[in-house]
């Protein structure tokens, strides 16, 4: 290192090590302060943060939010009769009790509550005098055979089959609309915001558990946004337990690595401090913890441990020569502070690149993670050596590292063969073939978006998704809805000029592959017009008479807004695969282009499928930019560090290979490119480059010392191989526990990150030296003083 830089380092070193008590005290104070804030952090599942707010679809949705109010925030409780059908006394009684029970749950919009037991659910019939009708369950209902028969015939006439009653008559639904905020039961003048978790728990206790126990012949299925969010928050809480598991595994591994209880504890404590600081700071910035940013503490923990391990490794080596712990700690600080900083900068930039993706949760994840790695500079690069300087490292550990330094390592010796002139080409060719194969595989198979049926956030076999399957297969309904908003002049939505094109759009959509059905006010209008023409099918079409049209939609609640200037067309899709969404969106856009005119506009989009379509577009658009940025930055970092293009290639190529393999794995496992997996690649590359930097810097120093490549690589492995291996395992363990999360995308993230961390490590250990065989001119390096930033 140049004189100048050493002075700088020494200044920082002096500043820290001459004021050790102050450093400890300051850290303690900050920790106390931030712990206080960290404890106040709350789960936040703000809907808006999970969607790309600036996408035109979402902007349109927000603009018309009030017009589309209550379009969908309902929970549906389906009560299934396990034996027989719904037409028996006990079943109907249970259904009634569930209806009443739901009525009294806080947050329920009681006026909209609907089941067979609601007086508003009626049957109608055309007679000579006009319409005849009545309540589906009449006042005279008494559960007798006769009244059950009457009920059966009323249900058939009610048009509720497929809606409130399953197509096979084996279950019926209680439709529970919700209010986002409702009057406080204790103080009617105050409004309480609906607590989804609490609401979801109440459904479980007061409805599912209670009535399944009370009537063993019923099984209850519950779906709806509120239930899903409740389940998500529950899943989020379960993840906290994973942190404990990761912590224990790491503790055991750390001890196995160091054989020193003092340094194990020091590393764990300083890393925990990093996590506390990160959480506290995130809270101070005003963020909560959501299912995505939940990942950050795990990552910070893993990154912190891996830096800590390198510190301990260094101090143990230095302790062999130094006479006391303080000197060893100072020397290690001097030696490792700069590479540590560079690695952390690389990590941070991986996170910052995520800001490209215009989705709130990803922004918070990026900012939270950047804060976290910055914190590691203080805790693991500064506080840890200071702490060790007091505590020291056990004699046993020091002796072990001394022995290791001179002992022959058959495994590393064997591994160093990858740099052998005949083995290296094989390794490179295999890697290249694997990379090219994986590239074409992922190109053919990798899809954007969520690929599973049901709620993509939850596992396909979760209770929620099983319930969802039940309802989708037994009722005429789909859980994937794309809403097209049709905008007209006020009072214009019921004109023939608006309704005829809406009708055409409905038909066009129904003819689009992947669309099950499409429903709009026209659907209702036609039924009413038919009804007022004595039920004759020959009249089931739009009229041209304005009065007829007006009265035909009078009862089509929720199918248009208050001043009849906006009418949604609800397009029910088979699934939410990217291709399905894209096709449906394209069909609407084509139609809009042909039919938009003054006073009639077809606007995308709302509904869960609309949001997913927007999200997919944002992801497709930002994926390449983000990858480009990450790789460009990593390459620049390597260039600055090593001042060598071949070295940069040696480090970056294995990362590219891992990214491609990662994509192929996603394609193979049927995981789509989505909000949750996009950060994985940035994180994988940003953190994965650490291995390469670490290995190459050592390799270069041995090459400079004049060793031939294979020998230099053996020495590299001997001194850092174990630390690299350990780092990889630490990172992998930190995130691997996520694979068991109840939340599907967390599991996907955990799986992908584990894969990225491990494969990046293997790539750095096997491919980097093999590439060096071709790219690095060892003769030129030998004996030359380094221009590299990290030269010792």
């Amino acid at each position, binding site marked *: 290192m140049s004189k100048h830089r050493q002075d700088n380092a020494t200044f920082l070193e002096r500043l820290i090590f001459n004021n050790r008590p102050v450093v400890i005290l300051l850290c303690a104070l900050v920790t106390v302060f931030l712990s206080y804030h960290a404890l106040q952090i709350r789960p936040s599942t703000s809907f808006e943060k999970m969607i790309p707010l600036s996408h035109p679809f979402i902007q349109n949705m927000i603009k018309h939010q009030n017009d589309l109010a209550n379009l969908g925030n309902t929970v549906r409780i389906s009560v299934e009769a396990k034996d027989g059908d719904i037409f028996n006394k006990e079943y109907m009684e249970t259904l009634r009790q569930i209806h009443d029970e739901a009525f009294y749950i806080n947050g329920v919009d009681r006026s909209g509550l609907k089941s067979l037991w609601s007086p508003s659910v009626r049957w109608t019939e055309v007679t*000579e005098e006009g319409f005849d009708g009545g309540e589906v369950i009449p006042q005279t209902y008494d559960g007798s055979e006769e009244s059950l028969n009457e009920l059966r015939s009323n249900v058939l006439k009610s048009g509720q089959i497929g809606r409130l009653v399953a197509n096979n008559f084996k279950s019926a639904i209680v439709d529970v609309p919700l209010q986002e905020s409702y009057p406080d039961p204790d103080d009617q003048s105050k409004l309480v915001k609906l607590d989804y978790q609490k609401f979801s728990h109440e459904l479980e206790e007061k409805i599912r558990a209670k009535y399944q126990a009370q009537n063993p012949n019923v099984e209850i299925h519950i779906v709806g946004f509120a239930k899903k969010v409740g389940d998500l928050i529950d899943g989020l809480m379960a993840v906290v337990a994973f942190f404990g598991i990761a912590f224990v595994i790491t503790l055991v591994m750390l001890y196995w690595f160091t054989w020193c209880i003092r340094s194990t504890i020091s590393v764990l404590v300083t890393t925990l401090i990093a996590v506390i600081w990160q959480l506290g700071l995130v809270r101070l910035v005003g963020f909560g913890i959501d299912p995505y940013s939940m990942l950050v503490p795990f990552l910070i923990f893993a990154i912190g441990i891996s830096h800590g391990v390198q510190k301990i490794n260094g101090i143990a080596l230095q302790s062999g020569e130094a006479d006391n712990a303080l000197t060893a700690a100072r020397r290690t600080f001097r030696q490792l502070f700069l590479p540590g900083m560079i690695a952390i900068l690389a990590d941070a930039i991986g996170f910052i690149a995520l800001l490209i993706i215009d989705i709130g949760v990803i922004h918070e994840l990026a900012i939270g993670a950047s804060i976290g790695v910055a914190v590691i500079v203080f805790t693991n690069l500064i506080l840890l050596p200071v702490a060790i300087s007091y505590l020291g490292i056990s004699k046993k550990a020091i002796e072990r590292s001394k022995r290791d330094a001179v002992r022959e390592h058959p495994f590393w010796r064997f591994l160093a063969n990858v740099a052998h002139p005949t083995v290296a080409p094989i390794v490179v060719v295999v890697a290249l073939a694997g990379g090219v194969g994986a590239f074409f595989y992922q190109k053919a198979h990798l899809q954007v978006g969520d690929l599973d049926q049901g709620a993509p956030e939850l596992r396909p076999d979760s209770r929620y998704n099983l319930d969802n399957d039940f309802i989708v297969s037994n009722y005429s309904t789909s859980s994937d809805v794309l809403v097209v908003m049709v905008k007209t002049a006020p009072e214009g939505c019921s004109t023939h000029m608006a309704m005829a094109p809406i009708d055409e759009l409905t038909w066009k959509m*129904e003819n689009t592959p992947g669309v099950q059905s499409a429903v709009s006010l026209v659907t209702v209008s036609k039924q009413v017009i038919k009804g007022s023409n004595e039920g*004759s099918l*020959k009249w089931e*079409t739009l009229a*041209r008479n304005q009065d007829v049209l007006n009265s035909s939609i009078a009862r089509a609640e929720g199918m248009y807004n208050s001043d009849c200037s906006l009418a949604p067309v609800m397009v029910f899709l088979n699934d939410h695969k990217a291709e399905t969404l894209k096709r449906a969106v394209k069909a609407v856009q084509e139609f809009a282009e042909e039919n938009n005119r003054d006073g009639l506009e077809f606007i995308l989009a709302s509904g869960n499928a609309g949001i997913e379509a927007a999200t997919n577009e944002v992801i497709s658009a930002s994926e390449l930019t983000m990858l480009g940025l990450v790789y460009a930055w990593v390459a620049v970092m390597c260039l600055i560090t090593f001042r060598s293009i071949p070295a940069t290639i040696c480090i970056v190529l294995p990362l590219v290979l891992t990214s491609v393999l990662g994509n192929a794995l996603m394609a193979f496992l049927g995981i789509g490119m989505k909000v949750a997996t996009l950060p994985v690649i940035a994180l994988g590359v940003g953190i994965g480059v650490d291995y390469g930097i670490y290995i190459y810097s050592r390799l270069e120093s041995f090459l400079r010392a004049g060793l031939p490549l294979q020998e230099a690589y053996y020495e590299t492995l001997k001194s850092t191989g174990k630390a690299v291996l350990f780092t990889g395992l630490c990172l992998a363990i930190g995130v691997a526990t996520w694979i068991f999360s109840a939340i599907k995308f967390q599991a996907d993230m955990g799986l992908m990150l584990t894969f990225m961390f491990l494969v990046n490590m293997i790539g750095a250990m096997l491919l980097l030296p093999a590439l060096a065989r071709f790219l690095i001119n060892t003769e030129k390096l030998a004996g030359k003083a380094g221009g590299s930033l990290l030269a010792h």
Partner: protein
Amino acid sequence: MSEPVMRRTQSGQAENLFRSLQSPLAKTLSLCTVLSVLAFAVAPVQAESADQPAAAYSIESAKAKHSLLVDVSRAGKRLVAVGERGHILYSDDEGSEWQQAKVPSRVLLTSVYFVDDQYGWAVGHDATILATQDGGANWTEQFRDIEREEGAPFLDVWFKDRQHGLVVGAYGALLETNDGGASWEEVGDRLENDDGFHLNAITAVKDAGILVVGEMGMMFRSADGGETWETLQSPYDGSLFGVLGTAQPSTVLAYGLRGHMFRSTDFGDSWQPVKIEAGRNGLQVSLSGGSLLADGSVVVVGNGGVVLKSDDDGQSFSVAGRPDRLSLAGVTANAQGNLVLVGQGGVRVASPTGLNLGQQ
């Protein structure tokens, strides 16, 4: 889904027209123009007002056979069904495969009638009358007037031969042609229907004349092919949706709301209710369409998937309720004697009693 405009031009006239337009000028013409020229060239469209643009062609769709279809008829060996969005479908294999005809209309078509295996007419909303001369594959517009009673529908059509036909419809519409539909004349004032009640159906009665039924139990008959009409004493004051001549002379059935059906053996002079055995309360659903089959049996269908069949010229009926309960509006039989049913959910072939095939 695609616009079928360029797809099928089997009709000789249309092909000739396209061939004769193979000039640079023709290429500059938009497709729309070509088609409207086509429409004007092959069909006299007297009722077409100048400011009324040519109707768009119905959209070809694989789902058309599952869309709402309200009438089905035989054109020789061919089956032809009509319904919403200008859908006209035909089948040359007794109902298993259906092709979509080229139709210059997107309205709900309510009725179709063939005088032989070539010449047929269909009517529908927006006062639309369509005609075919190739057994239902290609259709042209003969009449359309969206101003007429705000586009109120024509509801039934009957032709005596290739020249002479009658159309009935909403608000007392009665139109007559004596030139195969080249010109249509409004003859509604020949009936005593001052309140303009809907005329729902028209039929020929063997060896007697023609009979029209409508709203409020209205009944009219004509023994001279529609020149003069006589108002009948109706047995019912609810709507009658259909009327059907049987194989016996002067014998006719009229049916409508809530399962009401009446039979006359004297061309409407006197009517007897037909008792239909269906549960405690009797048949409660509307009967909307029917057919006299080749073997002389009579089939009537209605809402809620009900299918009535009579082998004694309508004196008594067997009743079948289809399990899907989808409303039916039209029926005919295929060569195997199975029923071809249309209504909600499109067209399906059912057993001779009306139940699903293979479900007996």
